[in-house]
């Protein structure tokens, strides 16, 4: 069994994601009942998206590398790990050994969990299965064991579904989305961390009374929300810091060049993901139809992308403030061992705070402080994971001639990624520990949920 799997995954590595994924997606689409031309077209689109992302990541590397080296030489600030952001992380995840088979396996697992009643969320947001594939891909790459990677991806899915169920009542009440939950690999873990933080914040005299108004923050910090301006501005600053102005003519040209190139990366990288996404839509639709037909009449939460809460004023305001905060935090933590320079994922901060905000009951001051804490701590996780992420990226066919390291805030800095990576690398015993912990949490959430439903039913009964 294992030998066959290793053979398959070796073939996959040899082909590279941009060839192998189109084939797999076509086969998967046909298996779900799609006509061949439609499935094949979808497969090709995914391959094209891959190639596009690879090109832009190459551009990012070529541009940031020299400036980061200059920064290290001139200021002794060693921020040499490039944050390639979620667009590249997602592509790396789907392009990893685990990613290739993640969608069908995880979808089946989700249906199984619903059938036995352990979790209540049907995660129809197939795109975001990349978070689980990312964790699994990292473990598979470092242990060299494909099955371990799959196991870790599955456990990450179980824990995330349980987290989505746990947070659902609070989030549904705060945002007013009935019957929706957010089994989002990035956001869900942070919701759990926000809970004890909120308990602490409630008990700090003075601080527990602070509030801020989202509208005035949006007006003042709005500029940090625009990717192209943000990319250009950071490019100029990084260029000035990295190249200096010793030779004004050459340096100004280099600085302006870095500005326009980083602006280009911030705008083009997400566009490439949109192509990847377009290829995934037919599969996602077919899978949803396939599952809902087989689970008729069951009541479950519909699991969606936490992107849909990002427009909430408190989430926008929090994220805007956190952009400069994250940059300054990264520089301040450099002497303590952080090597990640936040770049592409400065535009993804909303996903980190999306589900923390409702736990903080929409309080922006708390959300900013909580967000800064998890980002600051996360930078060390992202630094520690960088060699593995770089390796998985190379396996997926992202060539990196400069030999530098890559990482990301989403999900490279995620505490769940860090935890699963740590235990996954302890071998099967560690993985068993993860499984027991995650299942225990799921059971606890389920019992608690049942008790609440019973209490609500009792309250409705006539006295």
């Amino acid at each position, binding site marked *: 069994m294992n030998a066959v799997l290793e053979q398959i995954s070796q073939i996959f590595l040899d082909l590279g994601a941009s060839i192998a994924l189109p084939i797999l997606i076509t086969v998967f689409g046909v298996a779900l009942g799609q006509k061949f031309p439609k499935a094949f077209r979808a497969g090709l689109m995914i391959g094209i998206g891959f190639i596009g992302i690879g090109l832009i990541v190459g551009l990012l590397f070529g541009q940031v590398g020299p400036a980061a080296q200059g920064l290290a030489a001139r200021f002794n600030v060693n921020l040499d790990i490039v944050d390639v952001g979620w*667009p590249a992380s997602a592509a790396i995840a789907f392009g990893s050994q685990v990613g290739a088979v993640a969608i069908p396996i995880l979808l089946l697992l989700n249906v199984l969990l619903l059938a036995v009643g352990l979790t209540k969320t049907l995660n*129809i*947001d197939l*795109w*975001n299965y990349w978070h689980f594939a990312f964790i699994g891909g990292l473990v598979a790459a470092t242990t060299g064991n494909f099955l371990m990677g799959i196991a870790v991806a599955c456990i990450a899915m179980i824990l995330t579904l349980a987290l989505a169920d746990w947070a659902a009542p609070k989030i549904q009440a705060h945002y007013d*989305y009935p019957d*929706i939950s957010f089994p989002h690999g990035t956001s869900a873990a942070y919701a759990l961390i926000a809970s004890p933080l909120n308990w602490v914040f409630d008990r700090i005299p003075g601080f527990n009374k602070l509030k801020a108004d989202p509208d005035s923050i*949006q007006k003042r910090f*709005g*500029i940090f*929300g*625009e*990717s192209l301006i943000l990319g250009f501005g950071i490019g100029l600053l990084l260029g000035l810091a990295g190249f200096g102005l010793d030779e004004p003519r050459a340096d100004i040209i280099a600085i302006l060049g870095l500005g326009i190139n980083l602006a280009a990366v911030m705008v083009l990288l*997400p*566009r490439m*993901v*949109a192509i990847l*996404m*377009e290829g995934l*839509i037919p599969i*996602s639709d077919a899978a*949803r139809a396939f599952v*809902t037909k087989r689970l008729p009449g069951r009541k479950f939460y*519909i699991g*969606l*992308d*936490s*992107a*849909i*809460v*990002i*427009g*909430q*004023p408190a989430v*926008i305001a929090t*994220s*805007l403030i956190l952009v400069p905060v994250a940059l300054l935090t990264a520089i301040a933590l450099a002497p303590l061992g952080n090597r990640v320079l936040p770049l592409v994922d400065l*535009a*993804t901060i*909303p*996903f980190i705070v*999306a589900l923390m905000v409702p736990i903080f009951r929409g309080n922006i001051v708390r959300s900013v402080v909580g967000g800064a804490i998890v980002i600051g701590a996360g930078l060390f996780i992202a630094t520690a994971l960088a060699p593995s992420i770089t390796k998985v990226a190379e396996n997926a066919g992202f060539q990196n001639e400069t030999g530098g390291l890559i990482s990301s805030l989403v999900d490279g800095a995620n505490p769940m990624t860090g935890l699963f990576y740590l235990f996954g690398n302890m071998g099967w015993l560690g993985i068993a520990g993860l499984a027991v912990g995650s299942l225990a949490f799921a059971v606890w959430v389920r019992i608690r949920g049942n008790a609440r439903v019973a209490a609500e039913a009792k309250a409705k009964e006539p006295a």
Partner: protein
Amino acid sequence: MKKILVICGTGVATSTVVAVKIQEHCASQGIQISIAQGKVMDLVRGVEGYDLIVATTPIPESIKIPVIQGLSFLTGIGVERTLEDIVEAVK
């Protein structure tokens, strides 16, 4: 030709789902439209030049362009109704 701006949290993920569905539906009805995608953070400082916004996430109140909620495209519940509303708005 009417211009529709599809907005979500990233300008990439869920808005692509919505944009593809609107494009397919309008093409099947013989309605010519142009669709752009964007992320909600880009709207904070205002936007112009579009006839309709379809969004999967809340839109800042300062935006004066008509907005249709597109959550149904993601849940799969009530899609026909939303598509009818969109067709009505861009006719």
